[in-house]
């Protein structure tokens, strides 16, 4: 109940159109669930009776299967939302663009994908999807409108089916890839031209349409380019010397004429050249915003908050920290940013202690622009410096929000991570803060260092966009203010002096050490059956099983669907006999469960995605912590079953099997059976995750020869439900 009350203000303000960023939670779908989401892919294929005349019947069926099943994978990925503020805003912009073509507007649907890949796409069915990564990069409404118009043009001109048609007619392969790329580029030029005209007709600014390509050019960078202040981490208790940040500059690469030979899209220079003649007549006319600028900024900020969350899930933690810094100037003392900052630091610490550090830091080759200074700094941190940063951040946040459960769990997770590191020494840290150490140093005239700290003030003008800053139309000044002499050798050792002095951290660390050692001992001792307890007691959350049916090494969508349903039926059937209540979050239940179920399902899928990136020596705290708590409360269980199966059906050579049987007579009956029976390779993976503890409770994987029949599936599920630990 408490958790619902926490979420309530956020949800209410969403409905009313205002967003409470202080209590930001991830984008949620709202309204009636559209048929795009509730109908199963095979139903959509069966119901799609529009015949594409230029395709043969077989190809037409293949085309429909491709478009419906592949889109289904995206919209049921847990990342796609409908009826959310961003989708609604895009719909409003589309209304502007198509004010003279209401019929076309009525055919389109707009959804948002929570992904940091800056992309938008349209489908043959009239669905247009924007990623939050792209939305966060726009400088104004016109740029968004141009991209939207581009996608509408693709749909209107039926480019998707034309491309498919080209591939079937020209036997698309490696040899004619160049031809295909040229064909695809023509379509892009066509879409750009039509989009430009659409924007001009709608009254958008011609020069901003032209500048839209800046978004494509620089979307690999963070959503803004602000100089990172070198005193950012400094607090009364924590100090980082300037020299730790390094002096190397990482320029932004700006080559619009890159080689596009192997790309389906023309390079930026060519695209600009194509639309320039159309636009330059209208330069200086039109508006950057037709809808409310405030609304645009709100939507963009929503996308930016979402982008931070996505980076945390994807372990792009340095990028998350820079983005948090960017947003902090507009959202000072924001709780959501504070908690996501804690998630990022804890994630970095986990990575360091569990051996996947290189996966979470930005590669040196990718260092570019203002953010590079922070990324470079983080790359160099050793485990003690990292721990100091993490614990300092957590401690400061916990003081501001002492009752927050999520922060407490993050705190424990960080100490658990340190405790799982076999080589650790708290004695390295000082129990006196650096200022005191500095004072002592001054008095004793001990030479600790001779470093000057420069406080940097960023005076970039607020009105400049990221792209203006990159292209040098803005100015920034560095101002030296106070100079402080301090130790630069081991600055971080003074950063958690209060925690060392109070011994709170060390006590918690010792408790976790005991727990971890006990667990290791238990793993070496054979357990007696009498001590075992069932993994699954009486309730279980079941997520969409991931099933792949391969026919001749190719994924057969419709058979995968059928196989998936067989698996869900097996789970439901066995659960019923075992008196286990199942909370089924598969797509089969969306029709009845509606938007609420869809949102919960998406939350769980994202939980699994974030979990998949972590090591088992981690106390996992999901970034959607409050939402996960809500689901656990609703279902009355914290156990979720994740299932993955693959079924490989091959061609069966009847003659070959019979011949083998005749050559080796004892095998003849079996070869005959093998020739006619459907007995193929079936791979299972089951995992039961305890969402509360953030740990894998049980896992089972096996590869068997099976007909894939229900009994085999039911046996595997039965065994899963009766496993003891």
């Amino acid at each position, binding site marked *: 109940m408490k958790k619902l009350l926490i979420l309530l203000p956020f949800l209410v303000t969403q409905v009313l159109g205002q967003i409470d960023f202080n209590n930001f939670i991830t984008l949620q779908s709202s309204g009636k669930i559209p048929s795009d989401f509730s109908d199963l892919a095979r139903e959509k294929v069966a119901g799609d009776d529009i015949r594409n005349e230029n395709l043969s019947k077989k190809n037409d069926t293949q085309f429909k299967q491709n478009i419906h099943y592949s889109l289904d994978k995206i919209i049921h990925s847990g990342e796609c939302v409908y009826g959310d503020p961003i989708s609604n805003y895009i719909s409003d912009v589309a209304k502007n663009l198509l004010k003279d073509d209401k019929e076309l507007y009525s055919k389109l649907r707009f959804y948002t994908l929570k992904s940091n890949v800056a992309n938008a796409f349209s489908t043959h069915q009239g669905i247009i999807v924007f990623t939050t990564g792209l939305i966060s990069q726009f400088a104004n409404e016109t740029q968004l409108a141009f991209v939207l118009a581009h996608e509408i043009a693709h749909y209107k001109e039926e480019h998707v089916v034309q491309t498919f048609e080209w591939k079937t007619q020209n036997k698309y392969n490696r040899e004619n890839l160049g031809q295909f790329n040229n064909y695809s580029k023509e379509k892009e030029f066509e879409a750009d031209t039509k989009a430009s005209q659409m924007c001009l007709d709608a009254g958008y600014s011609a020069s901003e349409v032209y500048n839209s390509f800046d978004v494509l050019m620089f979307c690999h960078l963070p959503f803004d380019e602000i100089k990172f202040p070198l005193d950012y981490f400094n607090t009364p208790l924590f100090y980082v010397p300037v020299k730790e940040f390094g002096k190397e500059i990482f320029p932004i690469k700006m080559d619009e004429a890159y080689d596009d030979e192997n790309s389906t899209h023309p390079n930026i220079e060519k695209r600009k050249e194509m639309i320039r003649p159309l636009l330059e007549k209208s330069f200086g006319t039109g508006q950057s915003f037709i809808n409310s600028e405030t609304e645009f900024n709100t939507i963009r900020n929503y996308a930016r908050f979402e982008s931070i969350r996505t980076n945390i899930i994807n372990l792009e933690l340095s990028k998350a920290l820079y983005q948090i810094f960017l947003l902090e100037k507009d959202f000072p003392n924001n709780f959501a940013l504070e908690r996501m900052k804690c998630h990022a630091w804890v994630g970095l610490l986990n990575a360091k202690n569990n051996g996947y550090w290189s996966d979470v830091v930005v590669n040196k080759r990718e260092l570019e622009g203002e953010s590079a200074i922070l990324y470079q700094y983080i790359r160099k941190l050793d485990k003690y410096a990292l721990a100091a940063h993490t614990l300092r951040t957590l401690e400061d946040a916990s003081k501001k929000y002492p009752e927050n459960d999520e922060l407490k769990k993050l705190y424990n997770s960080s100490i658990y991570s340190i405790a799982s590191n076999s080589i650790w020494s708290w004695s390295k840290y000082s129990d006196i803060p650096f200022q005191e150490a500095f004072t002592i140093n001054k008095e004793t005239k001990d030479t600790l260092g001779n470093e000057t700290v420069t406080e940097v003030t960023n005076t970039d003008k607020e009105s400049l966009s990221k792209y203006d800053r990159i292209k040098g139309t803005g100015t920034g000044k560095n101002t030296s203010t106070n100079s402080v002499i301090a130790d630069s050798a081991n600055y971080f050792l003074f950063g958690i002096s209060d925690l060392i002095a109070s011994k709170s951290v060390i006590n918690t660390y010792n408790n976790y050490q005991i727990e971890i050692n006990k667990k290791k001992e238990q793993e070496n001792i054979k357990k007696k059956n009498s001590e075992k307890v069932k993994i699954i007691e009486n309730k279980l959350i079941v997520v969409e099983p991931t099933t792949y049916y391969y026919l001749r090494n190719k994924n057969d969508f419709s058979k995968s669907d059928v196989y998936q349903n067989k698996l869900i039926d097996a789970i439901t059937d066995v659960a019923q006999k075992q008196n286990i209540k199942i909370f089924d979050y598969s797509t089969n239940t969306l029709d009845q469960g509606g938007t609420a179920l869809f949102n919960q399902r998406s939350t769980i899928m994202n939980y699994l995605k974030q979990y998949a990136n972590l090591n088992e020596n981690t106390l996992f705290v999901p970034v959607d912590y409050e939402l996960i708590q809500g689901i656990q409360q609703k279902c009355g269980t914290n156990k979720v079953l994740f299932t993955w199966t693959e079924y490989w059906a091959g061609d069966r050579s009847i003659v070959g099997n019979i011949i083998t049987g005749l050559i080796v007579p004892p095998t*003849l009956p079996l070869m005959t059976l093998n020739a006619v029976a459907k007995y193929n390779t079936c791979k299972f993976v089951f995992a039961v995750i305890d969402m509360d503890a953030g740990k894998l409770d049980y*896992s089972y994987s*096996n590869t068997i020869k099976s007909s894939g029949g229900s009994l085999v599936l039911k046996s595997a599920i039965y065994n899963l439900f009766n496993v003891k630990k």
Partner: protein
Amino acid sequence: MIRYYYTILLLFICFSSNSQYQGYFGKRTTISIDGILKGNVFYNVTDDISIYNTGKQMYEEKGSHLISGGFNVSLAHYFSNRFGLALDFSLYRNTIKTPLTATTYQSDLFAVEKMKMNTIHFIPKIEFSSLGNLPIGFTHSFGIGYSRSSIVDRDYNKITIIDNSGQSTLPPGTYLSTFRPTRLRDLHGLVLEYGLKLKLPINEFMAFNIGSNVRLNIPFPNRVFEVLEGSTYGFEDEVAKSMTRTRAWNIVDIRAGLTFMLF
């Protein structure tokens, strides 16, 4: 993208799997009952006797001992999804050739009707499966066990063809008397057997089996010596040779039946 993350999770789980083998619906011990059909694959390749006494008349017959039948009971326990141990008991019946025999030099030439031979096998086995789905699915088995063959103890019809005066009896093939073997010894030996079986589940408690076995019968050494180099030319020795030959040549069988999941 979602598949990428699920792939990572999949790999992570495969490496950290802590599976507890539970068998088929929690059952790891099974009992199988199969009917067997065995074939003498070397029928008539080396044999030269082609005249038989069916019990009613002399008859040139082929194939009556080509096929034999029986049943097999197997009790198995599986320790993992790829390995188990089993105990097989088989009983099957062959019809063996009985030779035309003269009791002594210049004495009667007679033929005894085809005799029935019972063979039992008692074989402990290892069962394994390369793509583990035990106790169902494809199973290989291999075992070394004990074999015993014995002639069924009853009266057999006997036809004397030529009497001790050198004259043929009236009329040829007339049934004249019965013969009860008294000196026939059981044949003991080792048997090595390899089997391949497919168990298809029917419901939670049963599976249908179909399979095939191949075996090598090795009589105990002293018995072989005695049969091959018997100093006495006698009917019993010929029967023993026939028994050994039949055992040796019945090397392949096919079997089908049911497996019951016990506990």
